[in-house]
Structure formats: C-alpha cells, structure tokens
C-alpha cells in the first residue's frame, strides 16, 4: 500500500450548546466566551429574534410587491449574530448578499437594509459609516477585497482585522482560492467566514466540495476551524479566536460555520423542486433560535416578561422596517447618471443633457427644468 496524503485529520465540529440547549464544555473554546454572562446571552437572543423578524417582514414585503427580491437568512441567525457581535467597530466586514443579520448587528439603518432589495439603489449604506462594505452579488469577489483591505491594515500597522462572509458554493470560485493564496503569502489579518448552509441555490454542498470545507484552508497554509453554525456561542468563540490572531499579527484564519438555509435561496426560488423535506425537518430540530431559547430556559432566564419584551422589540423593528420601505421616495430619473464617475465625463454629460431634453419633449415639467439647468 502506498501511504499518501489523502486528506487532513480534523478534531470535528465544535459545539458549546447542544440542540437541546445544554451548555457543554470545551476546554479550548470556553475561555473565549467566559465573559458572556446572562445579559449578553439575552442580548444575543434578542438580536437573533429581531434578525429573524426582519427576515420575515422583508419576505412579506416582497410578497406584497414592496420589495423586488429578498434573500432569507432563516436558520443562519446564530452564524451571523454570533460572528458579527464580536467584530469590533474598527474592523471591516466584506459580506455577500445574505448577511442582513450581520448588517443589523453592525448598526445599519433599517431603510438601508432594504434599499437595494426594493430597487431604489445598487446598495444600501455608506460602507465607511458602519465599516461594512456594500453587499457583494458576484460570488466570492469580496473575499479578495477583504484580503486587499487586510494588506492595507498590515501596511498601516493597525491592530484591526478584516472579515469576509461567503457561502459554501463560493468556495468553488477561483477568487476565493486566490484570496487564500494572497492571505497566506502575505500573512495578513483577515478572517474567512464561510457559512456552509448546505445549498448554493439548488446545488447541494457535496457538488462543491468533496471533503469538509474546513479542510480546504490548511492546504494553503491557513489554519481552520469547523464550528456548529447554529450554536451562537461556538460561533462567537471561533470568531474571537480568529480575529484575535489576526489582530496580533498571526495571519489569516478560516472558519466553516455549519448551518442550514431553511428558506428558499431568495423569494424567487422554489426549494420544493430540489430539496428533500425530511432534510429540512432534521435541521429544524437544530434551529439556532430554539437552541439559545432552550439554554435561557435551562438557566431560568426565559421569563414571560423577557419573551414579551423581545417580541415587542422585534415587532417595533418590523413596523419601522415596513414604514421605511413603503415610504421610501423613488429616485429621480437623473439619478441614473449620478456617480458613474467622480470626475466630470463629457460623454455622459452629453447623454444626460440629451435625455433631459428628451424627457422635456415628452412634456415632463421636472425634466424640462432640468434640461435648462446645469447638467451636473
């Protein structure tokens, strides 16, 4: 027999809360969450409830024609809240399109969360006000941006880090693998946070990865961890370990958070065409929200008062979201020409001038004014 290097040994999935809400100890990960007291636990629970409520409300808004599209994160609340809550303000986040839970934790304003999904903008917020980049739709592209940003952190000698979110499907893209190469070569402070939610639209994770996703990074010289992505504490611990290493100059880390997309890919998707309903049921039993709720219950913290309070908060957020959505003003026609360049552009200025004349010729008074005024 030929002894060959066939794959990596791994310590297995890290879990700190069982699906039944039992807190299990893990000597290596426990220290990283030992400061998480009852208040913080309640805070995490509250965040997760709100994030799920935002998701439900946005889905409803889409069904009612108020949003053009929405990518539900149902089932991924622990992965997003657990990680985002330990990213510091000065750190920078590069995410994909599904990280609305991360955006919430980051303090993104409610209208900004839905702006692009309503079709009112190509992205929702100013990245520099929340240190979170515009959501990325091109699968995997943002992992390189995070790596480049982390190169900048390194050049600046800053003690912050970048973290990038991407899916299991994204791991097949060249860009993600090139990001691992650059991150490893330059040993920059970046954390690769992969939410393995088991699906890339209709494609199961097995089509993208022949082995554990967490095994990928060590082949590039990047340490990795595989954590239960539905366990908010495990996610927190892993993210802290990784961010801490990055900030201390220890280079990149890869985290695979094993979770499950319980809803459709987007509101335009119909998972009944490709998904075994039993699989969904299995994962419903591991629901991240149920789990932290059970933990709170075991700890005697799940009072009616708390439940009411949290529900009230979530409903408030939902109401604000809905209001922000339906009241969002439409963009002006001339916005179509804005921000293509930061410097004047003769070609585009001419097109804008012609178009405003055209609108004026249709008898649109607003446009007529514009046609006479300045073009920029």
């Amino acid at each position: 027999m030929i002894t060959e290097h066939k794959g990596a040994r791994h310590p297995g999935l890290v879990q700190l809360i069982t699906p039944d809400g039992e807190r299990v100890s893990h000597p290596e990960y426990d220290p990283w969450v030992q400061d998480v007291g009852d208040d913080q636990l309640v805070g995490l629970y509250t965040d997760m409830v709100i994030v799920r409520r935002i998701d439900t409300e946005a889905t409803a808004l889409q069904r009612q024609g108020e949003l053009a599209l929405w990518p539900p994160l149902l089932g991924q609340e622990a992965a997003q809240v657990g990680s985002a809550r330990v990213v510091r303000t000065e750190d920078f986040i590069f995410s994909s399109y599904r990280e609305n839970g991360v955006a919430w934790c980051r303090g993104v304003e409610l209208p900004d969360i839905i702006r692009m999904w309503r079709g009112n903008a190509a992205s929702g917020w100013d990245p520099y006000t929340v240190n979170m980049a515009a959501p990325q739709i091109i699968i995997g592209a943002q992992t390189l941006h995070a790596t480049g940003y982390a190169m900048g952190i390194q050049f600046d000698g800053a003690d912050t880090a970048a973290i990038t979110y991407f899916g299991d499907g994204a791991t097949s893209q060249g860009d993600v693998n090139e990001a691992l190469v650059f991150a490893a070569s330059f040993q920059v402070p970046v954390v690769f946070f992969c939410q393995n939610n088991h699906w890339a639209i209709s494609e199961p994770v097995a089509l993208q990865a022949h082995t554990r996703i967490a095994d990928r990074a060590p082949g590039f010289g990047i340490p990795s961890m595989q954590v239960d992505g539905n366990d908010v504490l495990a996610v927190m611990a892993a993210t802290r370990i990784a961010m801490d290493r990055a900030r201390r100059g220890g280079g990149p880390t890869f985290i695979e958070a094993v979770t499950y997309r319980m809803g459709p890919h987007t509101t335009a998707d119909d998972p009944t065409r490709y998904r075994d309903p039993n699989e969904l049921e299995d994962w419903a039993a591991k629901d991240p929200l149920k789990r932290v709720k059970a933990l709170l219950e075991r700890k005697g913290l799940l009072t009616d008062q708390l439940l009411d309070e949290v529900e009230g908060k979530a409903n408030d957020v939902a109401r604000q979201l809905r209001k922000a959505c339906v009241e969002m003003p439409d963009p002006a026609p001339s916005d179509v020409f804005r921000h293509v360049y930061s410097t004047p552009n003769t070609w585009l200025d001419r097109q804008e001038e012609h178009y405003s004349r055209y609108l004026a010729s249709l008898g649109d008074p607003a446009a007529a004014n514009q046609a006479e005024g300045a073009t920029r």
Partner: protein
Amino acid sequence: MTTMTFGAAINAGLRKSLENDPKVVLMGEDIGTLGGVFRITDGLQKDFGKHRVIDTPLAESGIMGTAVGLAYRGYRPVVEIQFDGFIYPAFDQIVCQVAKMHYRTRGAVTLPITIRVPFGGGIGSPEHHSESPEAYFTHTSGLRVVSVSNPQDAYTMVQQAISCNDPVLFFEPKRRYHDKGEVDLGIDPASAPDMGSAAVATPGTDVTLVTYGPLVKTARDAALAAADDGISIEVIDLRSLSPVDYSTVEASVRKTGRLVITHEAGQSGGVGAEVAASITERCFHYLESAPVRVTGFDIPYPYSKLEMHHLPDLDRILDGVDRALNRPNSLSGLEG
C-alpha cells in the same frame, strides 16, 4: 404550428439537439434538478441523465474550461451562464481558449461550444442580472454571436448554434422568456434560414431600424405606431451580431437612406457603433442623414427603479426615427 413560450421553445430545441446527437451535453449552475433559474432546461436531466445535463460547481471559468476539454474530446457542450453579469469570470477562457483554439491549432481542434446567455434588462432584478455584454464578444475574433427575438428563431437557431463547428455566443432576451409565439417544431434547422442571416421583421420604406434580441418586439411596435403617422419603418432583426449580415442591412439602407440602430447596451463601443460605421462605409452616398443610435446610457446597469429610463422604449425609438428623418425631435435646435 404550436403556440409556446420563448422559454419552452428553447427547451424544445435543446431537447431535439440532445436527442439527435449523443455528444451534446448541457452544463451549468442549477440546470439539472431545478431546470435552471429560468426553467429553460426543465425536465432535461430527468430524461437524459446526469451525464448529459450536468449541474456544475459554482465557478464559471471552471465550467468554460471543462467545456473546452470536453470539446477537445469530441463533445458538443452547451453551457448555460445563469445571468449575463456572471459571464465575466469565464471571460479569459472564452477569449483566450474558446475563441482561439481553432486558430491556434491551425484547424486541428474545433470547439463546437454553445454559450447560452440570458441577457438584457426589464425584469426588475438587482445588479449584475440585466447586462448586455454582447459587444465584448463581437469584438472577439473566433466567436460567432447571435441573438434571438422570437420563439421560432429560438427553437431553430439554438439547434443551428449547437451544430455549428465554431463556438457560438447565444444571447437570449430574458424578459421575453414568457412571450408566446407560434413554433413549427417540425422544421429542419439545416434548411431553415441560417442563423448568420438577418431578417426583415417588418418591411418598410422610409427608414431602416436595426435591432436584435429583446428590442425587436419594441421596434416592431414602434413601426406599427409610426405607420399611424404615415411613416414606414423597416425593422431589421440582425439575429447574427458577429458577423453581421450587412447585405440585408445595406439593401434596406440603400432603399430608405436612413438608419436607426437600437440596443439596450451602452452606446460607446456597442454593436450600434459597428453597424453605424460599417453602413456609413458601405452606403455613404445613399445616406440622407447620419445614422442614429438609440441605446442604453454609458452607465452601469441601473437599479430597477430606474431601468425604464435606461432602456430604449417605443417613444425613445420614435424620437430617434424622427431624428433620422429630420423631423422635429427632442434634439431639434441643438447643433451637431
């Protein structure tokens, strides 16, 4: 004749190709169990199996590069790019491999690869889902580029593209997928008009209106509307964007003396620039006015609340027609 949607017509054409040639394989993201995000490949994996209709990993360069390898081995891959905006990761494999292999090997290797691209806007999608990248490919030697505008052409031309020994970019106007039309499923693609030829979609005498893909319907509607004003527009559906069938366009412009070109892609360096330049070269002395381009603006495709401003519509096209005819129009009085 059968009434069917545009999407169903492509599905039927793909099915025919899969039946007729065991070397035809379909590849792409979500094209198997799901039948594609637009359901264009619906049912095909079930009927032809996982080796004929292949769900691939999520990597466009990988899809294109493995398609090259399959073609090297004698297969005829038909690649689906899920949305126009996702073709760019495959750009290197398309430009450096797909387009050049035949030239590189002095004809020893043919790559009969068809690249299906749902393209264009008008469906209210977010960024990267509404692009019109065709000009990148018409500027790439070694590729053929076609775009279909109606279910019958979709059915016939997809089969012609698949049986063509040269690589073909096949642009499908996604906002027309649900449009219905009559399709003769019994047609023999080999005896139907070649995908390289343009078609006169609406005959006319006063002005030639050239377009392709999603705007053919809009252009024909414009011709109908103009007829009420006594203006006779000849609408030409280019069908083939590389090469353009200039003999058909030339014949029309020699007759009308006026040319309008419309497409969704941005103006600078778009297909319209090439058509305007070539027709001016070939018909200079027949032209009574400068060729007019009515196109998308030179901007990234806008968010959906603004896309109707970007996309040429019936009124903007007619305004362009007025310009070509030196009739009063939105730019009247502006010099140049």
